[in-house]
């Protein structure tokens, strides 16, 4: 029962989602989005809590065991608790000017800086790839170089053909390859979904435990 029922639940939930997409039958078309999908949405919202609980559990253990760099765990827990308590105490935290003010001076600067440093890592990766002297890496860097120069005014000043070439690469080489990758991904997703639904893939049910 502990293993079979979840597999049956997986199959039933997936089948209902599929049937709702292909069959026009009012009770089904009403029940799936309004009840089944709503149940999935509400129950999924609870999962965020266990993720955070797990984070707290790991970092509390680090503090109590005084492992290496345990002080960072204190900082994490303080930041977590501060924004959590404030979010629960303040009514409609997303619209609250005080919460928004604090949030806007902490999270957006951190997240945009975190993503922006990838530019430096990518530049370093590109340099290393270029040193490999293979045709593949040269072609990749050549097209990347054209796209980057085509997107900035200085590229057009160097050679007016850069924006034209950039547009051509985007419209004919990139779009076509991405389209092929999308087709492959869709076929892969379909096969994987089918395997999950019929119970051939059970990794989500704690594997062989």
């Amino acid at each position, binding site marked *: 029962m502990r293993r079979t029922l979840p597999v049956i639940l997986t199959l039933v939930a997936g089948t209902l989602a599929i049937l709702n997409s292909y069959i026009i039958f009012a009770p089904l078309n009403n029940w799936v989005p309004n009840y089944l999908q709503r149940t999935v949405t509400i129950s999924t919202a609870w999962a965020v809590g266990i993720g955070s609980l797990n984070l707290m559990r790991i970092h509390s253990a680090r503090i109590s065991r005084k492992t290496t760099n345990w002080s960072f765990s204190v900082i994490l827990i303080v930041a*977590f608790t501060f924004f959590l308590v404030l979010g629960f105490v303040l009514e409609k935290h997303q619209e609250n000017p005080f919460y928004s003010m604090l949030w806007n*001076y902490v999270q957006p600067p*951190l997240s945009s800086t975190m993503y922006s440093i990838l530019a430096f890592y990518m530049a370093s990766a590109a340099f290393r790839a270029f040193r490999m002297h293979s045709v593949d890496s040269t072609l990749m860097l050549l097209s990347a170089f054209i796209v980057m120069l085509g997107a900035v005014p200085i590229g057009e000043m160097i050679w007016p053909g850069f924006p034209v070439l950039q547009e051509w690469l985007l419209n004919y*080489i990139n779009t076509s390859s991405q389209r092929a990758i999308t087709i492959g991904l869709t076929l892969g997703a379909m096969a994987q979904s089918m395997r999950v639904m019929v119970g051939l893939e059970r990794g989500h049910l704690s594997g062989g435990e």
Partner: protein
Amino acid sequence: MNVSPEFIEAFRPLGVWIAAALTLGIYSILWKENYYYRVCEHIFVGATSAYLVVTSYANTIKPAIEVDMIEKGMWWQIIAIALGCMIYFQPFAQFRWLSRFPIALWIGFNAGFAGLTMRTIMPMIVSVRATMLPLVVFTNGTFDLLRSFNNTVFVLSTTMTLLYFFFSFEKLASAPGVLKVCRWVMMLSFGVGFGNTVMNRITLVMGRFSFLFSDWLGLI
């Protein structure tokens, strides 16, 4: 707890200093791994996790209980809440099997919804249809070399990428030249993606530098 616009304006300089300190803290990793960066990194993880919890509660759980169940009488949603609560048995080995039920529901529904419905299949069909372009194009009765060339490149590029993914290991192993050309096409495409991503990241860098030099230091 509401604050006045005057308070927000008075807090602004301190807020800008906090944001600048955090920005510099993240950038300090470019020099080397250091304490300052790790502090900012942990603040980022802690603050974002808390925000996700609060937002999930405020946007989904709270309306489900207060509005749907209590005000509208949709008591069936207790099932959804019970299922959601069952995931909290995950850390307890003896009762872990109970957490399989919500996971089974989420995975099953999303496998069907995202993998096998028209929502997923239609874009693929549209993609296939849009790739079937005429290789020889006539515009106003005359041969259009540019469009014919572009369409041929498009169709060949799609076909080669598909060939590489689907037949690279067995069917085309005896024709390494074909595989090589397929890979070159893909490399050109990945280069475009790489270039675009670098440009996006540079935009973010410029945004942060603009903040530092304009809002914080007031130099520009």
